[in-house]
């Protein structure tokens, strides 16, 4: 009797002990993740005077909105957000569609050689984009489909750089950012669909296109949500391709952030000479810019995170 009670007590202690450890761990890790954001938030509203005051760490003594408003003006923020948002949304829709089509074909519409092609799709993930960046750049500098334009008009093809076109064309042809990974995800999900579902659709007179749109896609909603969110976010944050294709235009937030150093110097001192500007203030303004770039994503994430977290767990990522 006593032994049983002792056992029950140790059980209870163990359970509670683990609960405490778990809370501490999760709280600590969450703090580590949120720390840089909190730190940027704290800095964003500080007057430059507070920067030199060693008593001010987190809560500003002289609250000011000037940092934020001046960076909004410098980055041409509204315009850049609209541009970044539209390109990310466009790429998101196009890429999800193309990858779903390809994934379905690889999963359910097998033909001779399709497994070799799937191997090729996986291979595209493995080759780093840096390996092919120069030929890609040249490709878009004078865009030509296998020399057809040259053949017909004698010109060198279209100049597509400094526009949205390279990003749209790459995602439209399943070669966008991490497209291979998305094709893989869709293939896994569609492979899990029962064959009976297709057959029932066929018996009821649905063609292959209709089976795809009306039966397969609704069953793959979690994968679609995941792929859409990832595409959007990775496109939003991408600097490699955006700087390569449209670095001169300064239309996107990523472009602006990567060249903003001299601009900030210019704004503070009226000259681009780095030595004149106060490095602390430059650093502060850069942090504000990063905050401005992140904030639309964070706001969006607040709305979709619940759905996203649930969706991801149900995608076929499990392999």
């Amino acid at each position, binding site marked *: 009797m006593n032994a049983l009670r002792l056992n029950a007590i140790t059980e209870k202690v163990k359970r509670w002990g683990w609960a405490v450890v778990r809370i501490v761990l999760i709280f600590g890790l969450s703090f580590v993740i949120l720390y840089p954001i909190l730190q940027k938030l704290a800095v964003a509203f500080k007057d430059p005077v507070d920067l030199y005051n060693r008593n001010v760490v987190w809560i500003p003594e002289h609250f000011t909105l000037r940092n934020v408003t001046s960076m909004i003006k410098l980055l041409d923020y509204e315009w850049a957000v609209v541009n970044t948002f539209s390109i990310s949304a466009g790429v998101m829709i196009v890429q999800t569609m193309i990858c779903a*089509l390809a994934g379905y074909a690889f999963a359910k519409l097998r033909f001779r050689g399709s497994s070799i*092609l799937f191997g090729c799709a996986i291979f595209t993930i493995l080759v780093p984009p840096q390996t092919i960046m*120069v030929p890609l750049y040249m490709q878009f500098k004078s865009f030509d489909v296998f020399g057809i334009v040259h053949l017909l008009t004698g010109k060198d093809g279209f100049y597509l750089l400094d526009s949205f076109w390279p990003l749209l064309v790459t995602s439209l*042809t399943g070669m966008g950012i991490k497209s291979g990974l998305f094709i893989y995800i869709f293939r896994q999900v569609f492979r899990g669909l029962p064959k009976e579902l297709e057959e029932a659709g066929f018996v009821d007179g649905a063609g292959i296109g209709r089976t795809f749109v009306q039966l397969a896609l609704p069953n793959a909603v979690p994968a679609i949500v995941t792929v859409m969110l990832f595409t959007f976010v990775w496109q939003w944050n991408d600097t*490699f391709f955006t700087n390569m294709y449209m670095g001169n235009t300064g239309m996107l937030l990523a472009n602006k952030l990567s060249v903003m150093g001299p601009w900030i110097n210019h704004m503070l001192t009226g000259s681009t000479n780095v030595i004149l500007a106060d490095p602390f203030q430059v650093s502060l303004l850069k*942090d504000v810019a990063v905050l401005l770039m992140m904030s639309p*994503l964070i706001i969006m994430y607040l709305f979709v995170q619940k759905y996203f977290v649930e969706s991801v767990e*149900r995608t076929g990522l499990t392999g």
Partner: protein
Amino acid sequence: MKWKPLSFERRKQWSGVLFLIPWLFGFTLLFLVPLFRSLQFSLGKLVMLPEGGYVIDFTGFRNFAYALTEHAEYNRVLTESVVDMAVNVPLILFFSLFAASLLNQKFFGRSLARAIFFLPVILASGIIDAISNESIIASVMQGMTYSSDLSSDITGLSTSGLQSFELVFLLHDAGLNETMINYLSGAVDRIYDIISSSGVQILIFLAGLQSISPSLYEASKIEGATGYEIFWKITFPMVSPLILTNVIYTIIDSFADNELTQLAYTTAFSTLDFGLSAAMSWMYFIIVALLLAIVAYIVSKRVYYSD
């Protein structure tokens, strides 16, 4: 001539081709052709013609030799990138498996914790990291919070505001050897980097954990297995295929943004030496592909598949 209606199987095959047309188009035009070109570039010197276009002046493997033997920083950057990868992959894997099992348990505030843990997936990006790392403000604030006058450049700490001095002493007293101590304390110092690059891996593990049938756990509980045994005999084997997925993903992810890719980028677009840049990235690709093959081979031998 009479058209025979295609059989269902045939129609499926043809629509498969149809569905793949956009991808096939992109694969040849925007992947195979550039891949072939870049191989050509790496074997020669690109000469721009004044009337537009270019010719390649083939020089054999001179670009490769130059990068390896004469270039000021290529060797260092290459080894650093590869070593960083080798150091980080086990840490990321371990951490993400740990975080996923933590997030898989039932507790108060779980959905909030999950939302926070996936935040790095949303925010991880080259430009944000680059600017945050050079932020003077962050190191100053850290110095003030922890009342230390050492800036992050001197201590080599990341901006996460965590320090591991105590940990080093603790581990030393516990009798671990120097390498292990450095590895572990280094991991603690870089905890933010590790967390921020393990978002997707946590997702993958979490999905795997959710797909383990609860009946397995019930059965083992009835048999009297401890939590420790349950983890090593059930959870670990069941998620082991995902370890392979995650190793591969982590290695590939390190392509996306590191010093070497930066170097290749500036070599191409700032110094306009396209041949050298192509050679640099080809060597990097070959090394990483070899690493991938070795790791995949070793891991896949130990992976347990339930079906």
